[in-house]
């Protein structure tokens, strides 16, 4: 077993470590950080905007670059949270609390370094986690039949909805709309086109790229422009010294380890991921701290724990995607979309049929983390200077890159019209309090869910009891019901609301 693990990792590093691939990993990290560090742009819009760059590459290189972009974007997000108190996404809010407080005290360097070092350690553990748990999980996945997959997707979507912030009802609605949008195009089974309204560009379905760039990238720009004052960094903090002192280390290493452990576990859960892990870790650190009142005023554990946790979870949330083909959050849905565009259907088959790809990607995650550490940490000065570029000069550039990205992939005006439509759609829904992330999850799972439902019902000759008769499926559905019951219970509901308030 252990031998296998080493050998597998060796295969992975063999595939991933080439001059070219390391270059792509580096480029991905740099670009990811570059966009991610811009105030108000979280990891999801960052990845959405940078997706098109990876399309021209061969599959492994493209996945490696994408992983680099992902880590870069996350790291960039932490940097903005710490330095200018503008969280790019829900997960970074936690980092803002103590990270920015530290920056105000002139300890920005220590906060950034601890975030990077903690993330790196968490990334290493996460990588080993994937290597260790991937194959057994993939073996279990081999036992999965259509009904089991269907139930698994139901479970995944339900948990994702509950862990999303905001109204559960609206999130359910968004998932369903996403599922429906995912069905647009030619039905593989009958060959008939659905919801295409005679538009030939829709025959292959709605393209992923205009959808995500419209919903996330463009809406983000519009939202920022609506603020009376454009996001503009005001840092009084000086970068006195980058390296944390011995005291910082001794205060934070335990938090890093706890965060890593917590994040690794929470990342595997369907619906879990970086955001949940960061929140959970912050709560944990505050609970067990000797003096909880320090939190919010620059407690280094409040940076070290969540930052490690979110990176560990970012890593391990690849596990359900790579073994079961189930994206557990919107970022994984983006990854899955990118893989599908590369002609790879994520799932246990990737590991058996294309071990170089699977293990190469696992190895590249570790490489990506290392790149972040050795390259980004010294570059913090540059990222900081980038933060001071006024937003009025940045957003036209961002918009232009988005548009070129969409148009450049298949030179079709329809894609840009689609992007504009989704931007307006996303904007309206956001005004009504509906977050777009669940929609993307539904969108990517729509065709899969339909296919598995169809196959299940063919096997059972139309009897829906098949979902309860198969043990795996029954267990998954029971888990789903248990979770639904939990949220209906008022007590849990209050905890959830409190958790999101913090």
């Amino acid at each position, binding site marked *: 077993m252990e031998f296998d693990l080493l050998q597998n990792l060796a295969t992975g590093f063999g595939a991933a470590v080439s001059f070219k691939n390391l270059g792509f990993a580096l480029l991905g990290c740099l670009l990811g950080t570059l966009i991610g560090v811009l105030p108000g742009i979280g990891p999801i819009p960052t990845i959405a905007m940078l997706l098109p760059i990876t399309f021209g590459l061969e599959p492994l290189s493209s996945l490696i670059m994408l992983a680099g972009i992902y880590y870069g974007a996350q790291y960039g997000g932490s940097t903005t949270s710490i330095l200018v108190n503008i969280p790019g996404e829900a997960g970074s809010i936690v980092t803002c609390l103590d990270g920015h407080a530290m920056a105000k005290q002139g300890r920005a360097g220590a906060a950034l370094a601890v975030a990077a070092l903690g993330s790196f350690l968490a990334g290493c553990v996460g990588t080993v986690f994937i290597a260790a748990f991937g194959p057994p999980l993939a073996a279990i996945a081999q036992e999965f039949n259509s009904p089991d997959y269907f139930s698994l997707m139901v479970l995944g979507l339900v948990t994702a909805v509950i862990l999303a912030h905001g109204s559960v009802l*609206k999130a359910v609605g968004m998932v369903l709309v996403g599922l429906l949008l995912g069905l647009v195009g030619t039905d593989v089974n009958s060959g008939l086109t659905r919801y295409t309204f005679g538009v030939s560009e829709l025959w292959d379905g709605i393209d992923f790229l205009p959808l995500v760039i419209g919903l996330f990238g463009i809406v983000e720009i519009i939202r920022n422009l609506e603020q009376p004052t454009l996001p503009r960094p005001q840092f009084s903090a000086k970068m006195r010294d980058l390296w944390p002192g011995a005291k910082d280390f001794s205060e934070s290493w335990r938090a890093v380890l706890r965060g890593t452990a917590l994040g690794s576990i929470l990342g595997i859960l369907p619906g879990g991921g970086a955001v949940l892990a960061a929140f959970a870790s912050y709560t944990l650190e505050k609970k067990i701290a000797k003096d909880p009142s320090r939190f919010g005023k620059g407690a280094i554990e409040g940076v070290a724990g969540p930052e490690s946790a979110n990176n560990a979870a970012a890593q391990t949330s690849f596990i359900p995607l790579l073994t079961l083909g189930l994206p557990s959050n919107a970022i994984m849905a983006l990854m899955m979309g990118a893989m599908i565009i590369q002609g790879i259907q994520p799932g246990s088959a990737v590991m058996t049929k294309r071990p170089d790809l699977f293990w190469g990607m696992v190895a590249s995650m570790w490489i990506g983390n290392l790149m972040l550490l050795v390259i980004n940490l010294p570059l913090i000065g540059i990222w900081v200077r980038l933060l001071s570029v006024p937003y*009025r000069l940045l957003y036209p*550039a961002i918009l232009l890159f988005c548009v070129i990205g969409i148009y450049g992939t298949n030179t079709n*005006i329809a894609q840009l019209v689609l992007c504009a439509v989704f931007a307006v759609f996303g904007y309206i829904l956001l005004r009504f309090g509906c977050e777009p992330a669940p929609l993307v999850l539904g969108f990517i799972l729509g065709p899969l869910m339909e296919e598995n439902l169809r196959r299940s019902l063919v096997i059972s000759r139309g009897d829906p009891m098949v979902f309860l008769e198969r043990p795996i499926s029954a267990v998954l559905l029971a888990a789903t019901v248990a979770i639904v019951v939990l949220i209906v219970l008022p007590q849990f509901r209050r905890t959830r609301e409190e958790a999101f308030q913090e």
Partner: protein
Amino acid sequence: MLRVRSPQDLGAGLVFTLIGLAGFYFGTDLTFGTAARMGPGFFPVLLSGLIIAIGLVLALKGVAVEGPPIEPVQLRPISFIVAAILIFGFLIESIGLALTAVLLTIFAAYARPEVKLRETILLGVGLAMFTVLVFVYLLGQALPAWWGR
């Protein structure tokens, strides 16, 4: 007279209901089939039904339960940004990336008040040079750099 207590919920409910109704209406053109032999209309109609249900519950919630108001919509940012995207789309084939990049920048700039025209044009020219160099010449993407190719 019904009083709207949570405009956000009511709005979301109405949007969902409309989407569901549209999905249902256009889905009924497709064969529904039976559970054992699902037609192309089976899953879409099922989903549309669920969406309508969620929409109606949300709409009811909107008139029954107190909720936050809708932030006022500002027409300027959204209309100029969307216009910039569409102008890029409809002009790129005929006048090329260099000019459309400048146009997009100008349109985007007017999404906010107090435009500095000189600065914007300079930015547009800079972005045009950069993107033509990088995307057309360096990355070799299938984009026309100038008019007539």
